[in-house]
């Protein structure tokens, strides 16, 4: 048994050109994709055999943890185990110091003061605290919330919950490119509007909203502006002063940090007041009681600092890869539609619809590429994404959308392989598709009268 393992390892080491990488196969999937196919290296995943671990192209769902962030967290976990709120001994002071350093790192990324950062368990908690907290605090005078139809589920669910409590919510529609119509926003604001919540970068289609203009409108009408910037920080330049936001939700695991931590930026001047969701000893300015997860917070801070340093380089790299992906697919296929504005978009998100192909079958065919159709939250449900519906995409195109997420660690080989696999799958499915046949013959599908059996 041992000799078999040894001989297999020797064979692998001698013949595999990417010798060093194959040892850390869990991190780099480029090697797995391009390596020669040995029988004992294939993986059995849910009854299907694939040649190696799939290519990870779902960066909007989550990102792998950056090794440098992991180093910072590891060190902190072992040595700084005190409760950061213990005031009486060195263990508490050390842990508190680590948390404060992380706070400064997060604040610098968004041009805020460290006193304005409240650490939470993630962007979902931050969104809940912001939306429900603000409206509950001002419930006597403010009864109206404005948000968009393309928000993240946690914001929409919080708004629905507020509706149950008696508040009124306006869900603004978006234009076909995914951007908010500023005139509609201006018209929707009422004297009793307590909050405007519009996300900075959409997680499904990647469009970047016109934040400065929205901030200006909110300032004119004196309405607090909340934004879910979980997909935006560390990727596009964020400035809370220029955007005039009163509240901003952030998440660590979207910027190569650990899962389970996020933050809420709460403006101090002019002060915005919230009713906290977590009551207790008054930690984090009374807005989020409970012992802070020191190590997660340290990881978040380290991730923010890295993001600040590498934002420009990452953008260049990812933009190159995005163009490679889109051009590669468009060269070989027609009927490919990009969902959302191409101009005002974050480069790492590419949401494509392939006409005459069914999305689920395409996903099942793309076994060796880890992508998503729509967002991770909507992947559990059978309905197509509500974001695409808000864009006005036809039902058949909405069903066929695939979201490619490109990140800091994606390589050219991964993109090339993804293009190859996608093109192969789409062509195979289109060959089988009767609709595609009809289109090729020149029949206009929209005018067909389907008969009921």
């Amino acid at each position: 048994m041992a000799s078999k393992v040894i001989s297999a390892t020797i064979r692998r080491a001698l013949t595999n050109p990417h010798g060093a990488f194959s040892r850390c196969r869990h991190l780099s999937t480029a090697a797995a994709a391009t390596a020669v196919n040995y029988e004992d290296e294939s993986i059995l995943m849910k009854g299907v055999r694939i040649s190696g671990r799939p290519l990870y192209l779902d960066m909007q769902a989550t990102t792998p943890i950056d090794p440098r962030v992991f180093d910072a967290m590891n060190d902190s976990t072992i040595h700084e185990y005190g409760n950061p709120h213990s005031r009486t001994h060195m263990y508490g002071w050390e842990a508190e110091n680590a948390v404060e350093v992380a706070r400064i790192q997060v604040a610098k990324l968004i041009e805020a003061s460290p006193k304005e950062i409240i650490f939470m368990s993630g962007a979902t908690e931050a969104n809940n605290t912001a939306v429900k907290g603000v409206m509950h605090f001002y419930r006597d005078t403010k009864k109206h919330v404005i948000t968009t139809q393309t928000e993240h589920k946690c914001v929409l669910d919080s708004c629905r919950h507020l509706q149950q409590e008696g508040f009124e919510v306006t869900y603004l529609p978006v234009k076909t490119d995914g951007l908010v119509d500023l005139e509609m926003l201006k018209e929707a604001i009422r004297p009793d509007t307590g909050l405007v919540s519009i996300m900075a970068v959409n997680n499904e289609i990647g469009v970047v909203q016109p934040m400065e203009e929205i901030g200006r409108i909110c300032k004119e009408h004196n309405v607090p502006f909340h934004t879910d910037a979980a997909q935006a920080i560390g990727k596009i330049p964020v400035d809370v002063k220029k955007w005039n936001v009163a509240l901003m939700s952030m998440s660590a695991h979207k910027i190569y940090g650990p899962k389970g931590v996020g933050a809420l930026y709460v403006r101090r001047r002019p002060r915005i007041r919230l009713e906290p969701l977590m009551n207790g000893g008054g930690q984090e300015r009374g807005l989020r009681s409970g012992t802070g997860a020191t190590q997660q917070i340290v990881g978040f801070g380290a991730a923010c600092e890295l993001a600040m340093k590498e934002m420009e380089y990452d953008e260049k790299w990812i933009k190159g890869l995005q163009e490679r992906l889109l051009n590669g697919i468009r060269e070989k296929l027609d009927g490919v539609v990009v969902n959302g504005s191409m101009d005002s978009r974050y480069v790492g998100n590419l949401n494509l619809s392939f006409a005459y192909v069914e999305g689920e079958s395409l996903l099942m065919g793309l076994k060796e590429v880890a992508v998503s159709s729509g967002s991770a939250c909507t992947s559990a449900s059978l309905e197509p994404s509500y974001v695409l519906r808000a864009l006005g995409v036809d039902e058949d195109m909405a069903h066929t959308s695939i979201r490619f997420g490109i990140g800091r660690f994606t390589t050219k080989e991964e993109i090339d392989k993804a293009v190859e696999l996608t093109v192969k799958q789409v062509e195979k499915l289109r060959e089988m598709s009767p609709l595609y046949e009809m289109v090729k013959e020149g029949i206009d599908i929209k005018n067909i009268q389907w008969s009921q059996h």
Partner: protein
Amino acid sequence: MVFHRLSRLGSRIVRELPRGIFMPVFGMRILHRSYGQYLQSSPMLQRQTRSLKEALFSNNRKFCTSFSTTSEKGGEETEKINVIFVDKDGEEIHIKVPIGMNILEAAHENDIELEGACEGSLACSTCHVIVMDTEYYNKLEEPTDEENDMLDLAFGLTATSRLGCQVIAKPELDGVRLAIPSATRNFAVDGFVPKPH
């Protein structure tokens, strides 16, 4: 007899002097007193007329803006405003607060249950009071960042909350109603009330 004449003189002066120097409230009170003093002669009245004399012959600015109760005037009374505290059961307590005194001190002097754990050094939120009328709230100065930070920690915070130790009595606040919240951040679910030190 002397007091009677002095108060008469004072009321005439008040009528003739421009309104800018004397507060209307102050002037009105003197006018009332000058009729009322026929009916009674109280120490309050004596103090009022004595203070009128001082106002006439001394710098007005000193009179209107004295901050500490232990000023060079010693035990002599300064102008007071009416403050109404509404405690957690809804009962109203009317007190008079000298101008320049902070609300926390005034409450302690009148044995009102307003806890002031840090004794007015902006390090806690236990003297949290809620200004019941928005127009009185707007008459107060903007809270500083430090006060706002402490207020964030207060129990039962509202949009018109202030820290009592930072509210200094001034004539515009006459008649202000301050509600005391039902609890402070120092948990006392057993009903314990700490004594002011």
